[in-house]
């Protein structure tokens, strides 16, 4: 990032970054600091401020079965959604890349789901999978209770994963297609000259060269599933039935805003932050490698 040609001024750069710094200070650094503050303190019941309690809040959440259940739920959701979304997107991109002539039109046909808000998707999928009005209503008419995400936790999770993957497919697809199109054309042509057919070229050349994009998307999809899933869960299941879909973000929201347990919610936030930072660090190390790779 070192550049030779720069301007010099003692004051101007500060004025230029000031608005951004102020905003991130108030809405990023301060709240993050507060989260740490709350996580290690407890509000006194009759006033008198917050008292330092060390790791007590963390011990409490790690000792709670409900917390571990939300961790398991989050992992199930994150890995289910990511795996589904990545595999489908990869297949689509490989096929579309073959069809160079029409790939532009296909791109529009496949990218639009990313524009749809989680609440709208949640609402639509909730209707589609509604036991009384949705696609499975016929099934339920024959065998009452065969499909009911409002009562069956597995059904609810499946529905959630499908909705989440439906949204992410479009995003992943864009990246896979960009990755495929950045593979130098002569490489493909060389393989064709060497006698490799289209399917063989996909397997031997395109898929291996997509490895960086693939790992990048795994990380991004997981991060997204951990943090960005609130809207879907809140609209579709509200964490139910019987906490079967209470993922970590939702539990933070429920404990913090409904249970008014700020310290517990803050401690959970810290754990989630750790998880997200870990994923981000992996991503940056990987992005670093991608640079060398090219």
């Amino acid at each position, binding site marked *: 990032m070192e550049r030779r040609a720069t301007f010099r001024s003692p004051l101007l750069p500060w004025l230029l970054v000031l608005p951004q710094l102020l905003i991130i200070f108030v809405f990023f650094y301060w709240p993050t600091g507060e989260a740490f503050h709350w996580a290690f303190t407890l509000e006194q019941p009759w006033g008198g401020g917050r008292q330092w309690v060390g790791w007590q809040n963390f011990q409490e959440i790690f000792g709670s079965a409900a917390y571990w259940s939300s961790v398991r739920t989050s992992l199930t959701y994150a890995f289910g959604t990511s795996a589904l979304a990545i595999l489908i997107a990869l297949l689509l991109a490989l096929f579309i890349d073959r069809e160079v002539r029409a790939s532009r039109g296909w791109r529009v046909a*496949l990218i639009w789901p990313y*524009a749809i808000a989680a609440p709208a998707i949640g609402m639509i999928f909730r209707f589609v999978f509604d036991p009384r009005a949705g696609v499975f209503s*016929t099934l339920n008419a024959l065998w009452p209770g065969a499909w009911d995400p409002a009562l069956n936790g597995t059904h609810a999770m499946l529905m959630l994963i499908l909705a989440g993957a439906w949204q992410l497919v479009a995003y992943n697809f864009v990246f896979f297609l960009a990755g495929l199109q950045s593979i130098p054309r002569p490489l493909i042509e060389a393989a064709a000259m060497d006698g490799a057919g289209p399917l063989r070229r996909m397997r031997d050349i395109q898929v291996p060269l997509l490895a960086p994009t693939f790992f990048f998307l795994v990380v991004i999809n997981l991060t997204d599933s951990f943090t960005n899933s609130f809207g879907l869960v809140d609209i579709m299941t509200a964490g139910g039935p019987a906490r079967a879909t209470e993922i970590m973000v939702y539990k933070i929201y429920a404990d913090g805003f409904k249970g008014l347990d700020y310290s517990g919610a803050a401690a959970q936030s810290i754990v989630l932050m750790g998880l997200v930072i870990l994923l981000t660090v992996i991503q940056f190390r990987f992005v670093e490698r991608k640079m060398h790779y090219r």
Partner: protein
Amino acid sequence: MVERRPWLDVFTHIVLLLSAVALLVPVWLALVAATQDVAGVNSVPIHWLPGGHLADNLAEAWRRGGFATRFTTSLIVAVGVTVGKIVLAMLAAFAIVFFSWRARVLVFWAIFITLMLPLEVRIVPTYAVAANALAPFQAILDATGLTGLIETVSGIHVALQWRLLNSYPGLILPLIATATGTFLYRQFFLTIPEELVEAAKMDGAGALRFLWDVLVPLSRTTMAALATIMFVYAWNQYLWPLLVTTEPERSTVMVELSRMVPRGDGLPEWNIVMAGALLAMLPPLAVVVLMQRWFVRGLVQTEK
């Protein structure tokens, strides 16, 4: 390349067509539901072909959701976030890339780190800040003893207060507090040839003049990409508006949409709800379809 694989071509098209259809099915069903009356939408088996009540349902959803005001609110928020983000991002990236100053690396990292933690994971304390955006400064004054000092000197007790709940700044500002745009702009600025900066210097242009005359016009594509991404991002926000708008009249389209389904076991009027969902998802959908090129570019470049 000459390559004749008719069967593979057919197969390719079938796979693509099936996927496009699979992606479309849920939305198609929603559309069909929005054209039914209450009996039609709850009939078993589900209807696959549209009925004739679309206009009624849309009108009813529009009325029931109070979408006239909600759309205005959502639009102001989305445009506010988009414009705010672009302006802040451009200025900050400009300072980071085109100036040599001692604190540059420090500032760069301070902004960079915000990429790591999305709003959702620090939602509870951010909400507390929204209740009083000046609380951080008050806390600093208290901690440094300045409050006491000012009180003894002037007799005025300093109590900074700026409540952001149910306000546009409250809806907009926290959504701007990330570095996505700054990094998009930084990447773009790094591609500007150094000689262009030097030519401008030789021509007598100062920093701001260079920003305005050269960088702003050259960054139009970056701007379009960022604008598309940010508009969609802001319009689709759910959690934050849900928290920060405690008064129903202040809520956004997405929050209102979620309220169209009764909590508890009541049977929702799916035809109206689906009509509402269609209305709510229309603006970002239109933006993405119309600005498809910029949207894709923005997505790939910000890498989120």
